[in-house]
């Protein structure tokens, strides 16, 4: 198809309404949504899950499935109404003029076809180019997405590439036809932070280089700040505020946007002095939306008789061009009022050491053949010489990307695996060689775990109450069933869930509520040490704050030690007292939160800090993008585990990094770091995150 020359807005969505028709009737997913994307502009679409942002993207692709229908408004692409096009016209457009990139890269690639062939298909189908030309173009594009050795990549199958590389290929495929509009639906959610930073960098550069317009869908405000020019905040099917990044971030004019920003941990938030403000209440279900303003019931500025009546239009903000908000009280609210601090609390002093891990190692042997035991046995070093202590009522964050060994560490602590070497002591009792079945119920109850995925943490076929009662039974709490039932109800009170939830099935609960039940279950036997494996990373931003606060509160009351496993440095900075950074089975840095977040850093910590997107326009970051991927633990690099990606390697003399694992050095007062860099280098490091003077 000939590409049209057109210089008006690339995408114009006007008063779009999309509904899904199900057995239960019509469910409006998007209502009265308008947006405009100019050539070369990147529009960010931000909102919590279920707010309709992905539905908008599917609407643009005209791919709503059997149940979905556009029930009002229009979507114009380069001035042509997509809703009035025939299927074959749409087919011509998709993949050539509009390209979409999805969350899961492996699902977008055909596992049975070589990368090269999949890339070459695009121009061959849409423009009828010859195979040779298509191949040449493919090589160029693979180079443009900064993949090493393009000819080799073209000959590879998708499964031979890592997640980050796969996503780069998906982007390359989208670029093959030089589309005018690129839709990115959470393109980095499935990737690690440092890999994500690379992709974000790439997307930004490509936008500049090719002049492609972008629709960037994300739940992460920080990411949108880094990639987009304009922003549209969605809530419950409606756009509530839109404007340029600077306008929305610095002069937000909708209560939801404001509440959203207050519930994410920005630098400066502190769990004791300035705790996060969670948005109260729950996200309304599509068929239970309140009359008037959808955000009304959760809004601090709600006015009865006004906010809950009739239709609320988007209204422009004085003084800002193209900045609009769906609020009736824009001019009445004092937007610059300081945040009403939720109760600040005194810092709790850490007590005695309750958990001590000394020189712990965990190796796995992988045999080639299970039945006859192959001759070759390979060793996976999941944990190498891990040493740390955790004290009573202290939060120790364990930070690292996938494959760094933090889950193995948790398994060894819990007794699901036994350590290969070294000591683990809990409350003066050695537990490193005691598997869980040999631990006493009291020991098991003392050390409990909160899991990552809220949709997976509860048994879907047992009521919430029965699951907590079962934990109480196993831990030997209570004399009889009625006592346990009573205790279960108290636990529900503890995690601030109504007692009626005891009889509900997990599928009737929202993600945040499930996670609360998971917390209640972990604390059933008065746990003293709780390992929390990314407990909030799968939750929506506004729910994250509430669950985090709950964990902190229970910890404060019970003097619990919290081992908080996470890859999200913002939340770690907010809630932890000490931080331990892991890479490829090694602890590379450990120290107080202050020490770890300020220089000198370990080079890996430095990269991690720079990779985390921060939703604050006043923050200046040093950009450090790591090359390549995390090496496999089966075949770790010689010497320092981080040497293959380290930016400071050349600053160490004599190739020491490639020969020797650096020793753990103590810098000052408990701040330890595993690096060969000289003291002089370390002391000259600059902070990664700078908050501009206000």
């Amino acid at each position, binding site marked *: 198809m000939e590409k049209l020359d057109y210089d008006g807005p690339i995408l114009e969505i006007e008063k779009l309404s999309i*509904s899904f*028709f199900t*057995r239960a*009737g*019509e469910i409006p997913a998007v209502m009265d949504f308008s947006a405009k994307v100019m050539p070369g502009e990147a529009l960010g679409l931000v909102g919590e899950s279920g707010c309709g942002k992905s539905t908008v993207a599917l609407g643009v692709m005209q791919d709503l499935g059997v149940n979905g*229908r556009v*029930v009002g408004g229009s979507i114009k692409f380069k001035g042509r109404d997509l809703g009035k096009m*025939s*299927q074959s016209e749409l087919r011509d457009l998709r993949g050539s003029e509009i390209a979409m990139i999805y969350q899961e890269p492996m699902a977008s690639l055909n596992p049975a076809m070589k990368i090269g062939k999949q890339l070459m298909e695009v121009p061959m189908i849409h423009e009828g180019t010859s195979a040779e030309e298509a191949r040449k173009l493919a090589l160029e594009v693979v180079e443009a997405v900064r993949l090493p050795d393009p000819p080799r990549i073209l000959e590879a199958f998708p499964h031979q590439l890592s997640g980050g590389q796969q996503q780069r290929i998906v982007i390359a495929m989208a670029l093959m036809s030089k589309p005018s509009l690129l839709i990115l639906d959470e393109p980095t959610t499935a990737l690690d932070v440092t890999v994500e930073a690379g992709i974000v960098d790439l997307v930004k550069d490509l936008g500049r280089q090719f002049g492609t317009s972008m629709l960037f869908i994300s739940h992460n405000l920080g990411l949108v700040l880094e990639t987009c020019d304009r922003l549209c905040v969605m809530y419950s099917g409606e756009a509530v505020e839109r404007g340029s990044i600077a306008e929305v971030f610095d002069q937000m004019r909708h209560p939801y946007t404001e509440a959203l920003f207050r519930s994410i941990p920005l630098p400066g938030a502190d769990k004791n002095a300035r705790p996060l403000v969670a948005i109260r209440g729950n996200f309304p279900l599509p068929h239970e939306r309140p009359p008037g303003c959808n955000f009304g019931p959760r809004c601090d500025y709600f006015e009865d008789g006004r906010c809950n009546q009739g239709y609320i239009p988007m209204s422009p903000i004085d003084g800002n061009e193209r900045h609009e908000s769906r609020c009736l009280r824009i001019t009445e609210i004092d937007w610059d009022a300081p945040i009403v601090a939720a109760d600040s609390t005194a810092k709790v002093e850490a007590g005695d050491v309750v958990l001590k891990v000394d020189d712990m190692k965990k190796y796995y042997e992988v045999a080639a053949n*299970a*039945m006859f035991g192959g001759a070759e046995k390979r060793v996976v070093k999941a944990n190498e010489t891990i040493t740390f202590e955790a004290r009573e009522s202290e939060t120790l964050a364990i930070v690292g990307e996938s494959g760094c060994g933090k889950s193995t560490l948790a398994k060894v602590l*819990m*007794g*699901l695996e036994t350590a290969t070497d070294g000591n683990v002591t809990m409350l003066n009792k050695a537990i490193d060689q005691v598997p*869980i*079945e040999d*631990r006493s*119920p009291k020991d*098991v*109850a003392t050390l*409990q*775990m909160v*899991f*990552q*995925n809220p949709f*997976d*943490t*509860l*048994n*879907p*076929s*047992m009521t919430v109450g029965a699951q907590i009662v079962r*934990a109480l*039974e*196993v*831990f*030997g709490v209570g004399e009889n*069933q009625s006592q346990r039932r009573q205790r279960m109800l108290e636990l529900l009170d503890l995690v601030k869930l109504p007692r009626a939830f005891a009889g509900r099935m997990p599928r009737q609960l929202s993600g945040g509520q499930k996670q609360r039940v*998971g917390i209640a*279950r972990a604390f059933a036997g008065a746990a003293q040490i709780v390992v929390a494996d990314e407990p909030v990373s799968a939750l929506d931003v506004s729910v994250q704050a509430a669950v985090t606060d709950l964990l902190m509160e229970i910890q404060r009351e019970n003097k619990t030690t919290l081992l908080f496993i996470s890859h999200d440095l913002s939340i770690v900075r907010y809630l932890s007292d000490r931080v331990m950074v892991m890479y490829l089975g090694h602890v590379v840095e450990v120290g107080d939160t202050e020490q770890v977040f300020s220089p000198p850093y370990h080079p890996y910590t430095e990269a991690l800090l720079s990779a985390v997107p921060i939703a604050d326009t006043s923050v200046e970051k040093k950009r450090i993008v790591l090359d390549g991927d995390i090496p496999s633990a089966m075949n770790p690099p010689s010497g320092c585990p981080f040497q293959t990606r380290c930016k400071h390697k050349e600053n160490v003399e004599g190739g020491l990094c490639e020969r020797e694992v650096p020793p753990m050095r103590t810098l000052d007062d408990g701040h330890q770091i595993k690096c060969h860099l000289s003291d002089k280098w370390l002391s000259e490091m600059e902070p990664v995150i700078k908050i501009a003077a206000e």
Partner: protein
Amino acid sequence: MEPLTWTGILSPLNYALLLATLVLAVGVVTQLITALFATDEPLVVNRDGTLAAQGGFRGLTNEIVRWSFLAIVGVIVAYIVGGVILGRDAGILGAVSQRFLPVWIALIVTFSLSMTFKRNLGLYGKLFDSPVGMIGFGLVMFWVFTAAFEGFFGIISTHEALEQLVRMKNEAPGSPVEGVDPDAGYYSHYLLGGDNLARDVFSRMVSGSVIVILIAPFATIFAFMVGITLGLPAGYYGGRLDTILSFFANLILAFPVILLFYLLVTPEIRQTGIPTYMAAVLFLFPIIFFGILIHSKFRTRPEINTPLLVGVLGVLSIVYLSTINQEGTPIDFLGFIDLFDIAGGILTVFVSVVFVNSPTVFRIVRGLALDIKTRDYVAAAQTRGEGPFYIMLWEILPNARGPLIVDFCLRIGYTTILLGTLGFFGLGLPPESPDWGATINEGRKLLSVYPHPAIVPAVALLSLVLGLNLLADGLREQSLKD
């Protein structure tokens, strides 16, 4: 007396049925052809959120197909209702549907109750949202009710299954009973004709359903017990246990089924007691299953655990011993405490069917366990110190129930066919048994001259298995939705 025609005074309905069928056939064909050429006309959404009916030619054909299908259903209902009222006046169909009156009433009660409360009935209730599932469920319940009314009260069949009225040999359907004393209380007609030994085909089909409905689900339940009890540990532990168990499962699956059956029912093999020993092993699995199920759940509450275990295991053990203990077989030691005997033939059939089905169930359960054991709730159970069997039976098994229920329905169907095959080869059950397989085999001999003795049980078998497959389809479809 006059022989009955097929539809009697309801015969005008035949033309309506013919017409509706023709229209439906034409409609479906046009629909298929237009789908190849015509493009979708956009669906119009009204202001109030409802969808406007599709217009144009395609809309028209859609309407025609829908209405002609409804007409066919209507005519069939008219045959049944008319038959129930008019009885023999409405011909063979009328008389047959009148005989099935208790079944119709039971079906109507079941459906109306289920439809009323379908929102509170979980997956079973959702079945009533799927037409395919409803048809399947209807067919299956038809045979279940038939077997129940026949087995308990004997009120469906017109004659005794083994009763021979000499003059009725190979008589066509609807023939009046002749050569007997009219006051002896015999039913006036052989509704679906007589077979080669002058027995009533209709009554034999109805009595046959009792055997099929009794053996097939029970054998399938036993196969599931065996498959689950072995499949869960294989999937959960993995490693060498899994390798060995899977190897044996493959071994059984690779063995020719028919040969296996022949071996098991050969008198010489039966003399050695192999089927009895196999029964002794296979029937042990339910006891193991329930024992572990109860103990793993209630181990923390001895005050419930002990009495429950003693009670359940006690009852099961007595039933188990009575089942495997047979006079005249190598296992015969109980003497007077032996509560009941199961006819040797049925036991053998049972054992063979369980033996052949359990490896497949084993593989399904193993696969599901492999998948579910990676979930966080399993890890949560492990980290609170639950034993492996609690995790397998209370954390993994309940969450594998969806695919297992679907497979259960399909597998009853396979078992029914397997029973038919066994009967057809004359294996297991006695030759005079009215089960469908055996009757098909008998009817086969004169098939070209008198087809009805073979066709009737064949259609019965077909409708039951079809019903089970449709039911499984409906369940799968509904369990995939939301």
